[in-house]
């Protein structure tokens, strides 16, 4: 009951904020009109930046060509991201069970985060062949470590009092983990997921650039070859839309679940 009330209260608060909705829209309009006028007035070459209207027109016109690539990239990012989340959390959960394993594995996880996994793209072809769908693997290995790192951080920083509380009421190890350690780490888990989302899109686009043949990254280069700048920009905007949509979904779910965070 109380939880529902909290949710509705939060919703109301969001709705009540007209500044938060109107102001960004005004900015969008200003950017759009400003670019439109500015680019025309200064005769900016299309290869530097086409006008927003031209981008939209060009993209709509070529949408039939872009669509398969868009769906492909969407698929790669979504599947990769959706595998990386449970993989990262599960690994962190496993590591966090023993102090010694945490100590041993934390630097390894950091090492994996620091190393851009996209360095493996050229070798992936060698190992697994040229099937474009294999790019999912790049997305997974690029996004999993950062999710794992943040989650692990959350798992190991539980207040001693909370663990003592669990002990005092005789909670089992599993109960303690689910109700205390995991819940306590949720804000960090979501931080990891949101970062993982950014890493996923970067991984997918990089893979497109290197392996070519399919995907929005590849399409950008193809359009550029034929000087179709409007469509190139259109593809970039589509990638941005995929990124921000995933991020927004993650954020919305976070707000639903982590009600106690300000």
């Amino acid at each position, binding site marked *: 009951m109380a939880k529902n009330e909290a949710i509705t209260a939060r919703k*109301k608060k969001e709705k*009540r*904020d*007209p500044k938060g909705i109107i102001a960004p829209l005004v900015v969008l309009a200003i950017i759009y009109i400003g670019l439109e006028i500015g680019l025309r007035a200064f005769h900016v070459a299309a290869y530097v930046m086409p006008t927003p209207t031209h981008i939209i027109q060009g993209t709509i016109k070529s949408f039939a060509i872009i669509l398969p690539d868009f769906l492909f990239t969407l698929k790669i990012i979504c599947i990769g991201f959706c595998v990386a989340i449970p993989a990262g959390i599960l690994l962190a959960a496993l590591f966090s069970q023993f102090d010694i394993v945490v100590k041993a594995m934390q630097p390894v996880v950091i090492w994996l985060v620091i190393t851009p996994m996209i360095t493996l793209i050229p070798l992936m072809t060698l190992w697994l062949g040229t099937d474009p769908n294999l790019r999912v693997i790049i997305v997974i290995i690029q996004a999993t470590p950062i999710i794992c790192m943040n989650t692990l951080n959350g798992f190991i920083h539980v207040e001693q009092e909370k663990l003592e509380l669990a002990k005092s009421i005789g909670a089992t190890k599993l109960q303690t983990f689910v109700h205390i350690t995991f819940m306590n780490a949720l804000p960090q888990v979501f931080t990891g997921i949101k970062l993982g989302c950014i890493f996923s899109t970067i991984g997918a686009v990089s893979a497109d650039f290197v392996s070519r043949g399919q995907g929005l990254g590849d399409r950008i280069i193809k359009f550029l070859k034929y000087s179709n700048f409007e469509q190139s920009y259109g593809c970039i905007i589509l990638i941005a839309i995929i990124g921000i949509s995933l991020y927004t979904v993650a954020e919305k779910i976070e707000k639903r679940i982590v009600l106690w965070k300000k």
Partner: protein
Amino acid sequence: MQEPKIKFDHVTKVFQTRSQSILAVKDYSMEIAAGEFVSILGPSGCGKSTLIRMLDGIIDTTEGDIFIDGQKVNYAKKKMPQSILRKMGFIFQQPNMLPWFTVRENIALPLRVFDLKGPEWEKRVDELLELVGLTEYAKAYPAEISGGMLQRAGVIRAMVHDPEILLMDEPFGALDELTREQMNMELLDIWTRTKKTIIFITHNIEEAVLLSSRVYVMGTHPGRLVEIVDLDLPRPRTLSMITQPKFIQYREKLEGCIGEIDLSKIK
């Protein structure tokens, strides 16, 4: 009659949130003479903190005026000038130390902000540290010393620029009972020696009676003045006075005032 040091003249404060306006303080008036020690007593949410925040220029007033030494100090939507702010020192409910400065740097912060330079001011910092027994902790970071010590640091930070008025927002509320009693005595000692004007905000009736010469009782919904109680108790006050009949009489009277507020809230 002598001009009051601080005067609230029918002050009203309305907080405007996105959806509604909340009447935090309604038509509040009071006059405080120089060197007086008064308490503002009331339950949480009665707007007592809002009052001294308006006085100290942290938030603006909606209606009415505030005067210090006969000078109007509330400028709507405009920052209060430093010349007026310098007359006041604000003591927060939490120590509110900035964790990246040492204790001494924290205490000297008002000097840096008010641009008070010179050896006499630096000497004053050391004297104040000495006064509350923090000299050996001067170079420590706030995270390294206890809550009681931090709150002492908060008190002397508010005094370092030699203000005429001290505004105290439930300063010892977060401390344990023993430390709180000790701090109250130290505060009375400081007041007797320096004769500063003090507005002390509290929800603790005993504290209010023990410390002040007059108590303003506030009620909630909206925050308003309910009663003014003059305390005719001898000074210097001591902790042993708590058991005296006159003290108990005052306490019960104030308890009565607060009790009525609670009843009116239920209605």
